[in-house]
Protein backbone atom coordinates (compact mmCIF):
# COMPACT_ATOMS: atom_id res chain seq x y z
CA UNK A 1 0.00 0.00 0.00
CA UNK A 2 2.60 2.47 -1.07
CA UNK A 3 1.39 5.96 -1.74
CA UNK A 4 3.62 8.29 -3.72
CA UNK A 5 4.98 11.06 -1.57
CA UNK A 6 5.62 14.65 -2.46
CA UNK A 7 9.21 14.89 -3.60
CA UNK A 8 10.39 18.39 -4.26
CA UNK A 9 13.17 17.73 -6.72
CA UNK A 10 13.31 21.31 -7.94
CA UNK A 11 14.30 23.20 -4.82
CA UNK A 12 12.43 26.45 -4.20
CA UNK A 13 14.52 29.64 -4.12
CA UNK A 14 13.99 29.93 -0.38
CA UNK A 15 15.49 26.49 0.23
CA UNK A 16 18.43 27.21 -2.07
CA UNK A 17 19.03 30.43 -0.18
CA UNK A 18 18.86 28.60 3.16
CA UNK A 19 21.36 26.01 1.89
CA UNK A 20 23.79 28.72 0.80
CA UNK A 21 23.40 30.38 4.18
CA UNK A 22 24.01 27.03 5.88
CA UNK A 23 27.15 26.48 3.84
CA UNK A 24 28.45 29.90 4.80
CA UNK A 25 27.71 29.16 8.46
CA UNK A 26 29.54 25.82 8.22
CA UNK A 27 32.55 27.51 6.57
CA UNK A 28 32.78 30.03 9.39
CA UNK A 29 31.89 27.73 12.28
CA UNK A 30 35.38 26.43 13.23
CA UNK A 31 36.51 30.04 13.69
CA UNK A 32 34.08 30.54 16.57
CA UNK A 33 33.16 27.02 17.72
CA UNK A 34 35.00 25.14 20.49
CA UNK A 35 36.78 21.84 19.76
CA UNK A 36 33.87 19.86 21.17
CA UNK A 37 31.35 21.46 18.83
CA UNK A 38 33.70 21.32 15.84
CA UNK A 39 33.83 17.55 16.36
CA UNK A 40 30.08 17.35 16.83
CA UNK A 41 29.37 19.26 13.61
CA UNK A 42 31.93 17.06 11.80
CA UNK A 43 29.92 14.05 12.94
CA UNK A 44 26.73 15.70 11.71
CA UNK A 45 28.30 16.27 8.30
CA UNK A 46 29.43 12.64 8.12
CA UNK A 47 25.86 11.56 8.89
CA UNK A 48 24.65 13.97 6.20
CA UNK A 49 26.71 12.05 3.61
CA UNK A 50 25.30 8.79 4.97
CA UNK A 51 21.74 10.14 4.80
CA UNK A 52 22.21 11.48 1.25
CA UNK A 53 23.45 8.07 0.14
CA UNK A 54 20.30 6.42 1.51
CA UNK A 55 18.11 9.11 -0.06
CA UNK A 56 19.25 7.92 -3.49
CA UNK A 57 17.46 4.66 -2.70
CA UNK A 58 14.67 5.79 -0.43
CA UNK A 59 13.70 9.17 -1.83
CA UNK A 60 14.69 8.89 -5.49
CA UNK A 61 14.15 5.22 -6.33
CA UNK A 62 11.51 4.42 -3.71
CA UNK A 63 13.45 1.53 -2.15
CA UNK A 64 13.36 1.50 1.65
CA UNK A 65 16.57 -0.19 2.77
CA UNK A 66 16.61 -1.14 6.42
CA UNK A 67 20.19 -2.37 6.20
CA UNK A 68 22.09 0.61 4.87
CA UNK A 69 24.39 0.74 7.90
CA UNK A 70 26.13 -2.43 6.67
CA UNK A 71 27.92 -0.50 3.91
CA UNK A 72 28.69 2.35 6.30
CA UNK A 73 30.35 -0.10 8.67
CA UNK A 74 32.25 -2.09 6.05
CA UNK A 75 34.28 0.95 4.96
CA UNK A 76 34.99 1.89 8.57
CA UNK A 77 36.33 -1.62 9.16
CA UNK A 78 38.27 -1.46 5.89
CA UNK A 79 40.09 1.62 7.20
CA UNK A 80 40.76 -0.19 10.48
CA UNK A 81 42.31 -3.16 8.66
CA UNK A 82 44.31 -0.97 6.28
CA UNK A 83 45.81 1.19 9.03
CA UNK A 84 48.97 -0.39 10.55
CA UNK A 85 49.26 -0.28 14.35
CA UNK A 86 52.25 2.07 14.39
CA UNK A 87 51.78 4.42 11.43
CA UNK A 88 49.03 6.07 9.35
CA UNK A 89 47.85 4.74 6.00
CA UNK A 90 47.84 6.88 2.88
CA UNK A 91 44.52 8.63 2.32
CA UNK A 92 44.89 8.45 -1.44
CA UNK A 93 44.57 4.73 -1.79
CA UNK A 94 42.81 3.72 1.44
CA UNK A 95 39.81 5.94 0.75
CA UNK A 96 39.06 4.60 -2.74
CA UNK A 97 39.69 1.06 -1.56
CA UNK A 98 37.32 1.36 1.43
CA UNK A 99 34.62 2.94 -0.73
CA UNK A 100 35.08 0.22 -3.33
CA UNK A 101 34.79 -2.45 -0.63
CA UNK A 102 31.44 -1.01 0.47
CA UNK A 103 30.30 -0.73 -3.14
CA UNK A 104 31.27 -4.35 -3.78
CA UNK A 105 29.38 -5.61 -0.71
CA UNK A 106 26.38 -3.54 -1.82
CA UNK A 107 26.65 -5.01 -5.33
CA UNK A 108 26.63 -8.58 -4.02
CA UNK A 109 23.78 -8.04 -1.55
CA UNK A 110 21.96 -5.85 -4.07
CA UNK A 111 21.99 -8.72 -6.55
CA UNK A 112 19.71 -10.62 -4.16
CA UNK A 113 17.60 -7.81 -2.78
CA UNK A 114 16.56 -6.00 -5.98
CA UNK A 115 14.61 -9.12 -6.91
CA UNK A 116 12.14 -8.30 -4.15
CA UNK A 117 9.55 -5.58 -3.64
CA UNK A 118 7.88 -3.56 -0.91
CA UNK A 119 7.82 -5.15 2.51
CA UNK A 120 10.08 -7.94 1.26
CA UNK A 121 12.74 -5.45 0.28
CA UNK A 122 12.65 -3.91 3.75
CA UNK A 123 12.98 -7.28 5.48
CA UNK A 124 15.59 -8.73 3.15
CA UNK A 125 17.90 -5.68 3.31
CA UNK A 126 17.64 -5.83 7.09
CA UNK A 127 18.37 -9.55 7.21
CA UNK A 128 21.45 -9.25 4.98
CA UNK A 129 22.77 -6.31 6.99
CA UNK A 130 22.31 -8.39 10.12
CA UNK A 131 24.33 -11.15 8.48
CA UNK A 132 27.21 -8.71 7.95
CA UNK A 133 26.75 -7.49 11.54
CA UNK A 134 27.05 -11.01 12.98
CA UNK A 135 29.97 -11.81 10.69
CA UNK A 136 31.96 -9.06 12.45
CA UNK A 137 30.33 -9.50 15.85
CA UNK A 138 31.09 -13.23 16.10
CA UNK A 139 34.61 -13.29 14.65
CA UNK A 140 37.57 -12.47 16.89
CA UNK A 141 39.72 -12.02 13.76
CA UNK A 142 37.44 -9.20 12.61
CA UNK A 143 37.49 -7.53 16.02
CA UNK A 144 34.51 -9.27 17.58
CA UNK A 145 31.99 -7.40 19.71
CA UNK A 146 34.69 -5.06 21.07
CA UNK A 147 35.54 -3.60 17.69
CA UNK A 148 38.88 -2.24 16.50
CA UNK A 149 40.94 0.88 17.17
CA UNK A 150 42.35 3.05 14.42
CA UNK A 151 45.42 4.68 15.94
CA UNK A 152 46.10 7.19 13.20
CA UNK A 153 44.01 9.25 10.84
CA UNK A 154 44.85 8.69 7.18
CA UNK A 155 47.88 10.52 5.88
CA UNK A 156 47.29 12.91 2.96
CA UNK A 157 50.91 13.35 1.88
CA UNK A 158 51.86 12.95 -1.78
CA UNK A 159 55.51 11.90 -2.31
CA UNK A 160 56.58 13.60 0.89
CA UNK A 161 54.53 16.77 0.33
CA UNK A 162 51.68 17.27 2.81
CA UNK A 163 48.86 19.43 1.38
CA UNK A 164 46.77 19.09 4.56
CA UNK A 165 47.00 17.18 7.82
CA UNK A 166 43.85 15.31 8.85
CA UNK A 167 45.09 14.92 12.42
CA UNK A 168 44.07 18.56 12.91
CA UNK A 169 40.45 18.84 14.01
CA UNK A 170 39.72 21.86 11.84
CA UNK A 171 41.44 20.39 8.79
CA UNK A 172 39.38 17.24 9.18
CA UNK A 173 36.29 19.39 9.55
CA UNK A 174 36.93 21.21 6.27
CA UNK A 175 37.88 17.98 4.51
CA UNK A 176 34.51 16.50 5.55
CA UNK A 177 32.66 19.67 4.53
CA UNK A 178 34.31 19.55 1.10
CA UNK A 179 33.14 15.96 0.69
CA UNK A 180 29.58 16.88 1.75
CA UNK A 181 29.49 19.56 -0.96
CA UNK A 182 31.06 17.19 -3.49
CA UNK A 183 28.61 14.34 -2.76
CA UNK A 184 25.67 16.75 -2.83
CA UNK A 185 26.74 18.18 -6.19
CA UNK A 186 27.36 14.71 -7.58
CA UNK A 187 23.98 13.38 -6.46
CA UNK A 188 22.10 16.48 -7.69
CA UNK A 189 23.83 16.00 -11.05
CA UNK A 190 22.90 12.31 -11.00
CA UNK A 191 19.27 13.15 -10.14
CA UNK A 192 18.89 15.06 -13.42
CA UNK A 193 20.90 12.58 -15.52
CA UNK A 194 19.18 9.87 -17.59
CA UNK A 195 20.02 7.40 -14.78
CA UNK A 196 18.42 9.65 -12.17
CA UNK A 197 15.30 10.15 -14.30
CA UNK A 198 15.01 6.40 -14.78
CA UNK A 199 15.32 5.83 -11.03
CA UNK A 200 12.63 8.44 -10.32
CA UNK A 201 10.49 6.70 -12.94
CA UNK A 202 10.92 3.41 -11.11
CA UNK A 203 9.73 5.04 -7.88
CA UNK A 204 6.61 6.39 -9.53
CA UNK A 205 5.66 3.33 -11.59
CA UNK A 206 8.04 0.43 -12.05
CA UNK A 207 5.66 -1.56 -14.26
CA UNK A 208 5.37 1.30 -16.71
CA UNK A 209 9.14 1.71 -16.81
CA UNK A 210 9.48 -1.95 -17.60
CA UNK A 211 6.82 -1.73 -20.29
CA UNK A 212 8.82 1.11 -21.85
CA UNK A 213 11.80 -1.21 -22.10
CA UNK A 214 13.89 -0.23 -19.09
CA UNK A 215 15.68 -3.11 -17.38
CA UNK A 216 14.57 -1.89 -13.99
CA UNK A 217 16.52 -4.49 -12.00
CA UNK A 218 19.78 -3.29 -13.51
CA UNK A 219 18.92 0.32 -12.70
CA UNK A 220 17.97 -0.58 -9.15
CA UNK A 221 21.17 -2.56 -8.68
CA UNK A 222 23.19 0.41 -9.98
CA UNK A 223 21.47 2.72 -7.50
CA UNK A 224 21.98 0.22 -4.70
CA UNK A 225 25.70 -0.06 -5.45
CA UNK A 226 26.27 3.70 -5.74
CA UNK A 227 24.33 4.26 -2.51
CA UNK A 228 26.38 1.56 -0.76
CA UNK A 229 29.68 3.07 -1.97
CA UNK A 230 28.68 6.56 -0.77
CA UNK A 231 27.57 5.14 2.58
CA UNK A 232 31.08 3.67 2.65
CA UNK A 233 32.56 7.14 2.18
CA UNK A 234 30.66 8.26 5.28
CA UNK A 235 31.76 5.17 7.19
CA UNK A 236 35.40 5.77 6.27
CA UNK A 237 35.19 9.33 7.59
CA UNK A 238 33.47 8.10 10.75
CA UNK A 239 36.26 5.58 11.39
CA UNK A 240 38.92 8.23 10.73
CA UNK A 241 37.25 10.76 13.03
CA UNK A 242 36.47 8.54 16.01
CA UNK A 243 39.51 6.26 15.68
CA UNK A 244 37.31 3.32 16.58
CA UNK A 245 34.90 0.96 14.82
CA UNK A 246 32.57 -1.61 16.35
CA UNK A 247 29.72 -3.77 15.05
CA UNK A 248 27.13 -1.25 16.30
CA UNK A 249 28.04 0.88 13.26
CA UNK A 250 26.39 -1.76 11.08
CA UNK A 251 23.53 -2.38 13.46
CA UNK A 252 19.84 -2.14 12.98
CA UNK A 253 19.59 1.13 14.94
CA UNK A 254 22.10 2.86 12.70
CA UNK A 255 20.14 1.84 9.59
CA UNK A 256 16.88 3.01 11.11
CA UNK A 257 18.45 6.33 12.12
CA UNK A 258 19.44 6.95 8.51
CA UNK A 259 15.85 6.33 7.40
CA UNK A 260 14.68 8.72 10.09
CA UNK A 261 17.10 11.43 8.95
CA UNK A 262 15.91 11.24 5.37
CA UNK A 263 12.25 11.37 6.39
CA UNK A 264 12.79 14.12 8.91
CA UNK A 265 14.36 16.42 6.33
CA UNK A 266 12.29 15.42 3.33
CA UNK A 267 13.02 12.84 0.66
CA UNK A 268 14.26 12.75 -2.90
CA UNK A 269 16.28 15.95 -3.21
CA UNK A 270 19.39 15.33 -1.01
CA UNK A 271 19.03 18.78 0.58
CA UNK A 272 16.41 17.30 2.90
CA UNK A 273 18.77 14.49 3.86
CA UNK A 274 21.39 17.03 4.96
CA UNK A 275 18.85 19.03 6.97
CA UNK A 276 17.46 15.81 8.48
CA UNK A 277 20.90 14.50 9.47
CA UNK A 278 21.76 17.73 11.28
CA UNK A 279 18.38 17.89 12.99
CA UNK A 280 18.41 14.22 14.04
CA UNK A 281 21.98 14.27 15.37
CA UNK A 282 21.24 17.48 17.25
CA UNK A 283 18.12 15.96 18.82
CA UNK A 284 20.01 12.82 19.80
CA UNK A 285 22.59 15.01 21.49
CA UNK A 286 19.92 17.15 23.18
CA UNK A 287 17.89 14.16 24.44
CA UNK A 288 21.01 12.54 25.88
CA UNK A 289 21.71 15.83 27.63
CA UNK A 290 18.23 16.13 29.13
CA UNK A 291 17.67 12.67 30.51
CA UNK A 292 19.23 9.28 30.94
CA UNK A 293 15.96 7.94 29.56
CA UNK A 294 16.76 9.53 26.21
CA UNK A 295 15.50 6.47 24.33
CA UNK A 296 12.02 7.15 25.65
CA UNK A 297 12.19 10.75 24.40
CA UNK A 298 13.58 9.62 21.05
CA UNK A 299 10.89 6.97 20.67
CA UNK A 300 8.10 9.40 21.47
CA UNK A 301 9.61 11.96 19.10
CA UNK A 302 9.77 9.47 16.23
CA UNK A 303 6.18 8.36 16.80
CA UNK A 304 5.06 12.00 16.92
CA UNK A 305 6.86 12.86 13.67
CA UNK A 306 5.39 9.94 11.80
CA UNK A 307 1.90 10.72 13.10
CA UNK A 308 2.05 14.49 12.62
CA UNK A 309 4.59 15.41 9.88
CA UNK A 310 5.09 12.43 7.57
CA UNK A 311 6.58 14.59 4.80
CA UNK A 312 9.49 16.01 6.72
CA UNK A 313 10.72 19.54 7.22
CA UNK A 314 11.32 20.37 3.54
CA UNK A 315 8.06 18.61 2.70
CA UNK A 316 6.25 21.39 4.50
CA UNK A 317 7.60 23.82 1.92
CA UNK A 318 6.20 21.62 -0.80
CA UNK A 319 2.81 21.52 0.89
CA UNK A 320 2.76 25.27 1.26
CA UNK A 321 3.78 25.71 -2.36
CA UNK A 322 1.15 23.25 -3.50
CA UNK A 323 -1.44 25.15 -1.49
CA UNK A 324 -0.32 28.44 -3.02
CA UNK A 325 -0.35 26.95 -6.51
CA UNK A 326 -3.90 25.66 -6.15
CA UNK A 327 -4.97 29.02 -4.72
CA UNK A 328 -3.40 30.71 -7.73
CA UNK A 329 -5.41 28.42 -9.99
CA UNK A 330 -8.66 29.35 -8.27
CA UNK A 331 -7.99 33.06 -8.48
CA UNK A 332 -6.42 33.00 -11.93
Amino acid sequence: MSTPRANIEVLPRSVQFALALGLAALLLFPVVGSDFYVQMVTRMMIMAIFAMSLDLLQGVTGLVSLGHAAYFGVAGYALAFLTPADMPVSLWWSLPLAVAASGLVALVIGFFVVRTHGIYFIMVTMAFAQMVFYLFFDNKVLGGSDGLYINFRPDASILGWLPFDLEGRKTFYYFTLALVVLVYALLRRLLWSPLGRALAGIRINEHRMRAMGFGTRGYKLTAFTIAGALAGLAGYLWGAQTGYVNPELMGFHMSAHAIMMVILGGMGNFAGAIVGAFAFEYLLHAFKDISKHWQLLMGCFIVLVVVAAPRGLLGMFAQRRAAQASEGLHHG
Partner: protein
Amino acid sequence: MDFATFLIQLLNSVQYGLLLFMLAAGLTLIFGIMGVVNLAHGSFYMLGAYLGYSLSGQFGSLTLAILGGAALAVVFGLVLEWLLFRHFYHRDHLDQVLLTFGLIYIFEELRSILWGDDVHGVAIPKLLDWSIPLTDTLSYPVYRLFISGVCIALAVALYLLISKTRLGMKIRAGAFNRDMAESLGVNIKLIHAIVFALGVGLAAVAGMVAAPVSSVYPNMGSSVLIMCFVVVVIGGIGSVRGALIAALLVGFVDTFGKVLLPQVAGMLVYMLMAAVLLWKPEGLFKQ
Protein backbone atom coordinates in the same frame (compact mmCIF):
# COMPACT_ATOMS: atom_id res chain seq x y z
CA MET B 1 27.64 -37.91 15.55
CA ASP B 2 26.03 -40.87 17.28
CA PHE B 3 22.32 -41.45 17.29
CA ALA B 4 21.58 -40.05 20.76
CA THR B 5 23.39 -36.77 19.97
CA PHE B 6 21.60 -36.60 16.66
CA LEU B 7 18.26 -37.12 18.39
CA ILE B 8 18.99 -34.40 20.92
CA GLN B 9 19.96 -31.94 18.20
CA LEU B 10 16.91 -32.88 16.18
CA LEU B 11 14.63 -32.28 19.16
CA ASN B 12 16.39 -28.98 19.83
CA SER B 13 16.01 -27.85 16.24
CA VAL B 14 12.30 -28.74 16.26
CA GLN B 15 11.83 -26.85 19.53
CA TYR B 16 13.64 -23.77 18.19
CA GLY B 17 11.75 -23.99 14.92
CA LEU B 18 8.37 -24.22 16.63
CA LEU B 19 9.22 -21.25 18.83
CA LEU B 20 10.17 -19.24 15.75
CA PHE B 21 6.92 -20.30 14.15
CA MET B 22 4.89 -18.85 17.04
CA LEU B 23 6.53 -15.49 16.40
CA ALA B 24 6.57 -15.64 12.63
CA ALA B 25 2.91 -16.68 12.47
CA GLY B 26 1.86 -13.50 14.25
CA LEU B 27 4.16 -11.40 12.09
CA THR B 28 3.01 -12.92 8.83
CA LEU B 29 -0.68 -12.75 9.78
CA ILE B 30 -0.36 -9.07 10.60
CA PHE B 31 1.44 -8.49 7.28
CA GLY B 32 -0.83 -10.65 5.25
CA ILE B 33 -4.09 -9.33 6.61
CA MET B 34 -3.39 -5.75 7.56
CA GLY B 35 -0.36 -5.03 5.39
CA VAL B 36 1.56 -3.72 8.39
CA VAL B 37 5.28 -4.26 8.79
CA ASN B 38 5.82 -4.51 12.53
CA LEU B 39 9.40 -4.09 13.70
CA ALA B 40 8.15 -4.05 17.30
CA HIS B 41 7.08 -7.71 17.09
CA GLY B 42 10.30 -8.71 18.83
CA SER B 43 9.42 -6.33 21.65
CA PHE B 44 6.24 -8.32 22.32
CA TYR B 45 8.40 -11.42 22.67
CA MET B 46 10.59 -9.55 25.13
CA LEU B 47 7.54 -8.23 26.95
CA GLY B 48 6.22 -11.78 27.29
CA ALA B 49 9.51 -13.02 28.70
CA TYR B 50 9.68 -10.23 31.30
CA LEU B 51 6.02 -10.66 32.22
CA GLY B 52 6.65 -14.37 32.64
CA TYR B 53 9.64 -13.61 34.85
CA SER B 54 7.65 -11.27 37.11
CA LEU B 55 4.46 -13.34 37.19
CA SER B 56 6.13 -16.68 37.83
CA GLY B 57 7.96 -15.02 40.72
CA GLN B 58 4.65 -13.60 41.91
CA PHE B 59 2.46 -16.71 41.58
CA GLY B 60 5.14 -19.37 41.88
CA SER B 61 3.34 -21.19 39.08
CA LEU B 62 4.25 -21.16 35.41
CA THR B 63 0.78 -22.16 34.23
CA LEU B 64 -0.77 -19.18 35.98
CA ALA B 65 2.06 -16.98 34.72
CA ILE B 66 1.48 -18.06 31.11
CA LEU B 67 -2.29 -17.60 31.29
CA GLY B 68 -2.07 -14.28 33.12
CA GLY B 69 0.79 -13.03 30.98
CA ALA B 70 -0.97 -13.96 27.74
CA ALA B 71 -4.13 -12.18 28.90
CA LEU B 72 -2.15 -9.06 29.83
CA ALA B 73 -0.28 -9.12 26.52
CA VAL B 74 -3.51 -9.46 24.53
CA VAL B 75 -5.07 -6.50 26.38
CA PHE B 76 -1.88 -4.55 25.76
CA GLY B 77 -2.04 -5.46 22.07
CA LEU B 78 -5.67 -4.33 21.81
CA VAL B 79 -4.88 -0.97 23.40
CA LEU B 80 -1.87 -0.47 21.13
CA GLU B 81 -3.90 -1.38 18.06
CA TRP B 82 -6.63 1.04 19.05
CA LEU B 83 -4.26 3.87 19.93
CA LEU B 84 -1.76 3.63 17.06
CA PHE B 85 -1.74 0.73 14.64
CA ARG B 86 -5.25 1.10 13.23
CA HIS B 87 -4.27 4.53 11.93
CA PHE B 88 -1.42 3.00 9.94
CA TYR B 89 -3.10 0.23 7.94
CA HIS B 90 -3.39 2.45 4.87
CA ARG B 91 -0.15 4.32 5.35
CA ASP B 92 3.12 3.85 3.51
CA HIS B 93 5.41 0.98 4.62
CA LEU B 94 7.97 3.63 5.45
CA ASP B 95 5.65 5.19 8.02
CA GLN B 96 4.99 1.78 9.55
CA VAL B 97 8.72 1.11 9.77
CA LEU B 98 9.24 4.40 11.56
CA LEU B 99 6.28 4.04 13.90
CA THR B 100 7.32 0.59 15.02
CA PHE B 101 10.97 1.61 15.27
CA GLY B 102 9.94 4.43 17.59
CA LEU B 103 7.95 1.89 19.61
CA ILE B 104 11.05 -0.30 19.97
CA TYR B 105 12.83 2.62 21.62
CA ILE B 106 9.87 3.25 23.93
CA PHE B 107 9.50 -0.42 24.91
CA GLU B 108 13.24 -0.85 25.50
CA GLU B 109 13.34 2.16 27.81
CA LEU B 110 10.17 1.14 29.66
CA ARG B 111 11.68 -2.30 30.12
CA SER B 112 14.82 -0.70 31.50
CA ILE B 113 12.77 1.48 33.90
CA LEU B 114 10.51 -1.34 35.08
CA TRP B 115 12.92 -4.27 35.21
CA GLY B 116 16.42 -2.81 35.03
CA ASP B 117 19.24 -3.86 32.70
CA ASP B 118 20.36 -7.09 34.37
CA VAL B 119 20.02 -10.56 32.95
CA HIS B 120 17.46 -12.58 34.90
CA GLY B 121 17.06 -16.32 35.05
CA VAL B 122 13.61 -17.88 35.22
CA ALA B 123 13.24 -21.12 37.16
CA ILE B 124 11.86 -24.20 35.43
CA PRO B 125 8.74 -25.34 37.31
CA LYS B 126 9.43 -28.34 39.61
CA LEU B 127 7.01 -30.58 37.78
CA LEU B 128 8.96 -30.19 34.53
CA ASP B 129 12.46 -30.00 35.97
CA TRP B 130 13.74 -33.44 35.07
CA SER B 131 15.34 -35.19 32.11
CA ILE B 132 14.71 -38.31 30.07
CA PRO B 133 17.88 -40.44 29.96
CA LEU B 134 18.86 -41.46 26.43
CA THR B 135 22.25 -43.11 27.03
CA ASP B 136 24.49 -43.41 30.09
CA THR B 137 25.76 -39.86 29.69
CA LEU B 138 23.13 -38.07 27.58
CA SER B 139 19.63 -37.06 28.61
CA TYR B 140 16.97 -34.73 27.26
CA PRO B 141 15.33 -32.07 29.45
CA VAL B 142 11.58 -32.47 29.69
CA TYR B 143 11.08 -28.71 29.78
CA ARG B 144 12.24 -28.43 26.16
CA LEU B 145 9.63 -31.03 25.20
CA PHE B 146 7.10 -28.92 27.10
CA ILE B 147 8.03 -25.88 24.96
CA SER B 148 7.50 -27.90 21.80
CA GLY B 149 4.21 -29.20 23.20
CA VAL B 150 2.87 -25.72 23.95
CA CYS B 151 3.88 -24.53 20.48
CA ILE B 152 2.26 -27.51 18.77
CA ALA B 153 -0.93 -27.06 20.77
CA LEU B 154 -1.11 -23.39 19.83
CA ALA B 155 -0.28 -24.11 16.20
CA VAL B 156 -3.13 -26.64 16.03
CA ALA B 157 -5.46 -24.17 17.77
CA LEU B 158 -4.45 -21.48 15.30
CA TYR B 159 -5.05 -23.81 12.36
CA LEU B 160 -8.49 -24.79 13.66
CA LEU B 161 -9.36 -21.17 14.38
CA ILE B 162 -8.45 -19.99 10.90
CA SER B 163 -9.70 -22.88 8.80
CA LYS B 164 -12.67 -24.24 10.77
CA THR B 165 -14.41 -21.41 12.62
CA ARG B 166 -16.70 -18.59 11.55
CA LEU B 167 -14.19 -16.05 12.84
CA GLY B 168 -11.47 -17.73 10.81
CA MET B 169 -13.63 -17.56 7.71
CA LYS B 170 -14.05 -13.82 8.25
CA ILE B 171 -10.30 -13.41 8.77
CA ARG B 172 -9.62 -15.23 5.51
CA ALA B 173 -12.27 -13.21 3.70
CA GLY B 174 -10.77 -9.97 5.02
CA ALA B 175 -7.30 -10.99 3.90
CA PHE B 176 -8.55 -12.00 0.45
CA ASN B 177 -10.61 -8.91 -0.30
CA ARG B 178 -11.11 -6.35 2.41
CA ASP B 179 -13.74 -4.24 0.64
CA MET B 180 -15.78 -7.21 -0.49
CA ALA B 181 -15.77 -8.75 2.98
CA GLU B 182 -16.75 -5.44 4.50
CA SER B 183 -19.68 -4.96 2.16
CA LEU B 184 -20.84 -8.47 3.06
CA GLY B 185 -21.13 -7.36 6.65
CA VAL B 186 -17.81 -8.45 8.14
CA ASN B 187 -16.62 -6.00 10.79
CA ILE B 188 -13.11 -5.59 9.44
CA LYS B 189 -12.04 -3.21 12.18
CA LEU B 190 -12.88 -5.80 14.80
CA ILE B 191 -11.18 -8.55 12.78
CA HIS B 192 -8.02 -6.46 12.53
CA ALA B 193 -8.00 -5.80 16.26
CA ILE B 194 -8.45 -9.53 16.97
CA VAL B 195 -5.69 -10.59 14.56
CA PHE B 196 -3.32 -8.01 16.00
CA ALA B 197 -4.04 -9.07 19.57
CA LEU B 198 -3.62 -12.71 18.50
CA GLY B 199 -0.17 -11.93 17.06
CA VAL B 200 0.86 -10.10 20.22
CA GLY B 201 -0.44 -12.95 22.37
CA LEU B 202 1.47 -15.61 20.38
CA ALA B 203 4.71 -13.60 20.58
CA ALA B 204 4.28 -13.02 24.31
CA VAL B 205 3.59 -16.71 25.06
CA ALA B 206 6.64 -17.64 22.99
CA GLY B 207 8.71 -15.28 25.14
CA MET B 208 7.27 -16.71 28.34
CA VAL B 209 7.82 -20.38 27.62
CA ALA B 210 11.30 -19.70 26.22
CA ALA B 211 12.37 -17.62 29.23
CA PRO B 212 13.60 -20.50 31.48
CA VAL B 213 15.83 -21.76 28.63
CA SER B 214 17.09 -18.47 27.19
CA SER B 215 16.73 -16.29 30.35
CA VAL B 216 15.48 -12.72 30.01
CA TYR B 217 17.81 -9.90 28.95
CA PRO B 218 17.76 -6.47 27.27
CA ASN B 219 17.53 -6.42 23.46
CA MET B 220 16.33 -10.04 23.41
CA GLY B 221 13.64 -8.93 20.96
CA SER B 222 15.85 -7.71 18.13
CA SER B 223 17.73 -10.91 17.33
CA VAL B 224 14.48 -12.85 17.39
CA LEU B 225 12.83 -10.27 15.11
CA ILE B 226 15.50 -10.73 12.47
CA MET B 227 15.13 -14.52 12.56
CA CYS B 228 11.37 -14.00 12.15
CA PHE B 229 12.00 -11.86 9.09
CA VAL B 230 14.16 -14.60 7.63
CA VAL B 231 11.39 -17.13 8.30
CA VAL B 232 8.74 -14.94 6.71
CA VAL B 233 10.92 -14.21 3.67
CA ILE B 234 11.59 -17.92 3.16
CA GLY B 235 8.02 -18.99 3.81
CA GLY B 236 6.29 -16.27 1.82
CA ILE B 237 4.29 -13.35 3.16
CA GLY B 238 0.90 -14.08 4.62
CA SER B 239 1.30 -17.86 4.49
CA VAL B 240 0.99 -19.49 7.90
CA ARG B 241 1.83 -22.89 6.43
CA GLY B 242 4.91 -21.37 4.75
CA ALA B 243 5.93 -19.87 8.09
CA LEU B 244 5.70 -23.28 9.77
CA ILE B 245 7.83 -25.05 7.17
CA ALA B 246 10.34 -22.19 6.95
CA ALA B 247 10.60 -21.98 10.76
CA LEU B 248 11.36 -25.71 11.04
CA LEU B 249 13.88 -25.40 8.19
CA VAL B 250 15.60 -22.44 9.86
CA GLY B 251 15.60 -24.23 13.22
CA PHE B 252 17.19 -27.28 11.62
CA VAL B 253 19.85 -25.38 9.65
CA ASP B 254 20.72 -23.18 12.64
CA THR B 255 20.95 -25.98 15.22
CA PHE B 256 22.87 -28.45 13.07
CA GLY B 257 25.03 -25.65 11.64
CA LYS B 258 26.23 -24.83 15.14
CA VAL B 259 27.22 -28.45 15.72
CA LEU B 260 28.66 -29.39 12.33
CA LEU B 261 30.04 -26.10 10.94
CA PRO B 262 30.54 -23.80 13.94
CA GLN B 263 32.78 -21.37 12.00
CA VAL B 264 30.06 -20.31 9.60
CA ALA B 265 26.98 -21.19 11.69
CA GLY B 266 25.88 -17.56 12.03
CA MET B 267 25.77 -17.16 8.25
CA LEU B 268 24.10 -20.42 7.26
CA VAL B 269 20.54 -19.25 7.84
CA TYR B 270 21.14 -16.17 5.71
CA MET B 271 22.69 -18.28 2.97
CA LEU B 272 19.54 -20.37 3.05
CA MET B 273 17.51 -17.19 2.67
CA ALA B 274 19.66 -15.99 -0.23
CA ALA B 275 19.29 -19.34 -1.96
CA VAL B 276 15.51 -19.28 -1.59
CA LEU B 277 15.38 -15.71 -2.90
CA LEU B 278 17.35 -16.70 -5.99
CA TRP B 279 14.99 -19.56 -6.62
CA LYS B 280 11.70 -17.97 -5.54
CA PRO B 281 11.89 -14.21 -4.90
CA GLU B 282 8.44 -14.27 -3.28
CA GLY B 283 9.18 -17.06 -0.82
CA LEU B 284 8.28 -20.73 -0.97
CA PHE B 285 4.56 -20.43 -0.30
CA LYS B 286 3.56 -16.95 -1.45
CA GLN B 287 -0.21 -16.72 -1.37
